[in-house]
């Protein structure tokens, strides 16, 4: 008995767990500092730079990268790509966790987090795009939660309740796509109000469209990326269907990503042409913009296409990682790097290490919860008692 116990303790003390433990510890200390000393105690936010990486990374990147949930469930349930069925649950789970963590992260960023429900229950600022973002994210989080419950119910053996939710799949999927379209695009539209602060190469009246289209790319790439990681770490948890469908999913999603990237590239060019911003391309910001556009949009578009043509699953997976970096770069460019470009460098924002730590802390929590769930609930495999719906 005691032998067994010490064995499990030893098993828990993996390097991964130790690093995660340390991060959690630091995160908790910073949390205390944040809520006793105010934002100034842990961040480099200033009056000129009211939004830092908690918005630029945690919110903008978090929401974009959690798009896998709506993209996959739309592909499978609405567009009828049933053969990708095994990709739905992991995507919904990461989507749900992603959004939950985004909301969690916002509690660090806003000045009075306990008032976060105010825009809904006290006074509605319907002229604000942030209101739209808030309303849709709150509702979508609920939708994702319901979509995810069948896995929990199977785990707990609640057959009746599960059947009811499964019947709602179609409705929930449509609702989820509507809400995602709205808030993914509104995140871009947030910046429409600040044409004088965002560099013209990134500012565009098409910002909402850019954000929506790139969220599809992000969603597809995230599903590919996660499945790569999951295969590495959780393959013992996967059933035959999941393993057999994996290559299929990779090729299909890779092809879709390549197509959407091509479209995205085109509308970006149209955006520059319409605003006649060509002359900015020769400046320093122009070089940076071209790096993003050619290196992180055009290149992955090509690599995905080649990967699909050669049925090169490995190349597609690498491309997925690269594309995700590109999405992160795009969101950081808009929120931080090309934002406030008019200010002298002394007034520009550089994140405080504690801000970065909080983001790392939140991502770590996400990974730990993901691991907890997939090792227990039927995510990567079908529960033997239930047939796929």
């Amino acid at each position, binding site marked *: 008995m005691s032998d067994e116990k010490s064995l499990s303790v030893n098993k828990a003390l993996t390097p991964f767990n130790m690093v995660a433990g340390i991060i959690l510890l630091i995160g908790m200390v910073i949390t205390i500092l944040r809520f006793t000393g105010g934002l100034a*105690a842990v961040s480099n936010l200033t*009056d000129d730079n009211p939004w830092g990486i908690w918005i630029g990374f945690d919110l903008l990147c978090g929401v974009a990268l959690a798009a896998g949930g709506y993209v996959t469930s739309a592909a499978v349930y609405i567009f009828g790509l049933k053969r990708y069925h095994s990709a739905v649950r992991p995507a919904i789970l990461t989507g749900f966790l992603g959004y939950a963590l985004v909301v969690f992260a916002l509690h660090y960023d806003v000045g009075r987090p306990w*008032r*976060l429900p105010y825009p*809904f229950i006290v006074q509605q600022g319907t002229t604000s795009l942030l209101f739209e973002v808030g309303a849709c994210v709150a*509702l979508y989080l609920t939708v994702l939660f319901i979509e995810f419950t069948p896995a929990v119910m199977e785990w707990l053996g609640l057959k009746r309740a599960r059947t009811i939710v499964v019947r709602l799949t179609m409705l929930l999927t449509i609702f989820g*796509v509507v809400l995602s379209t709205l808030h993914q695009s509104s995140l871009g539209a947030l*910046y*429409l109000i600040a044409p004088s*602060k965002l560099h013209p190469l990134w500012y565009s009246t098409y910002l909402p469209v850019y954000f929506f289209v790139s969220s599809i790319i992000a969603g597809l790439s995230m599903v590919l990326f996660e499945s790569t990681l999951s295969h590495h770490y959780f393959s013992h948890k996967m059933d035959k269907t999941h393993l057999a469908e994996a290559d299929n999913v990779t090729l299909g999603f890779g092809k879709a990503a390549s197509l959407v990237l091509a479209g995205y590239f085109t509308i970006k060019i149209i955006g520059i042409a319409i605003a006649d911003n060509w002359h900015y391309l020769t400046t320093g910001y122009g070089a940076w913009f071209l790096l993003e556009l050619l290196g992180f949009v055009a290149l992955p578009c090509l690599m995905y296409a080649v990967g699909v043509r050669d049925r090169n699953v490995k190349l597609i997976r690498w491309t997925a990682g690269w594309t995700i970096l590109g999405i992160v770069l795009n969101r950081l460019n808009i929120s931080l790097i090309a934002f406030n470009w008019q200010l002298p460098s002394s007034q520009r924002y550089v994140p405080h290490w504690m801000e970065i730590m909080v983001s790392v802390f939140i991502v770590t929590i996400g990974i730990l919860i993901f691991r907890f769930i997939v090792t227990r609930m039927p995510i990567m495999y079908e529960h033997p008692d239930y047939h796929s719906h």
Partner: protein
Amino acid sequence: MSLTRRRFLGWMGAAGAGTLVGRQAEAAANVHFTGYPDSFAVLHDITLCVGCRSCEAACNTVNELPPPNRPFKDLTVLDQHRRTTSKTYTVVNRFQPASQAPKSIFVKKQCNHCLEPACASACFVRAFKKSPEGAVTYDPTVCVGCRYCMVACPFEIPAYEYEKALDPKVMKCTMCHPRVKNGQLPGCVQACPKEALTFGKRKDILNIARERIHKYPQRYIDHIYGESEMGGTSWLYLSSVPFSQIGMREDLGTTPAPELTSGALGAVPIVVGLWPVLLTGIYAITQRKEKVSAEEQRLAVSQAVEHARQSAELDMVRAMEKAEKDKETAIKQAVKKAMDEAVKAQQEVKA
């Protein structure tokens, strides 16, 4: 997180209706909203400002702001280009444009009290309001602290109390709204010893400004800053040099902030209305396709089965025939054998 669908649709409708109403109002009036008719404004004649910081001191007093790090009499702070902060609603900065050297130009900066404020349009709890008196006021009892207003303000005015843990607020000039409602002048206007600040109805203020430009064309450039910047503001400026040389942006355009986002907000009801229809349509098509292909599959399968059955029958018949034949030959052979044997036996007996 138990938000009902109806409530959500209500919001969406509200968002959509808001934009629609806005547009209708504009369309009906056929002119642009130029603020409340009798609202007040302040004229800052930059050519008259001597940089004494009396306004800063007065603002600090009337708003009961914390004492400054360096006394207001200390004029060396003018050398840095300061912005408004959570402890100072207004700052005076010194500029030395090459064309005017060695003369210094002093410019006061505070909230411009836009006619259609970006901050108010951006706030998702409507903490900011443009009052009929002209001031853009802030309600700290609802503010969540998202700081989107600070992102939105084109003049970089609102500041935040980052060092407060429990009750941080957005801080900015109030145009002395409480004082104005009491019939008093704004603190800074009252304190100015040089009459570089003039308070009055916006209509009258614009006329005064125009008159000055008209009377002293050498003294002023022909532009009233704030008359139409970002749709117009309640704080107006006159200057002897181009405004871009004294730290004021001339590239803001005349589009009021709410118009920048109205297109995106207007798309909401479209998405809410069209997406479900479209998606259900696509779903129906894929369902139908699946049904058709399932039907085809069933047909193919049954055909194959039929075919198999038929060919199996055929095989059976053939096999039977063959078996018949085999049997016959076997009988014949057996008979033959028996006959042979009988013949042999007979021969043996004979022998």
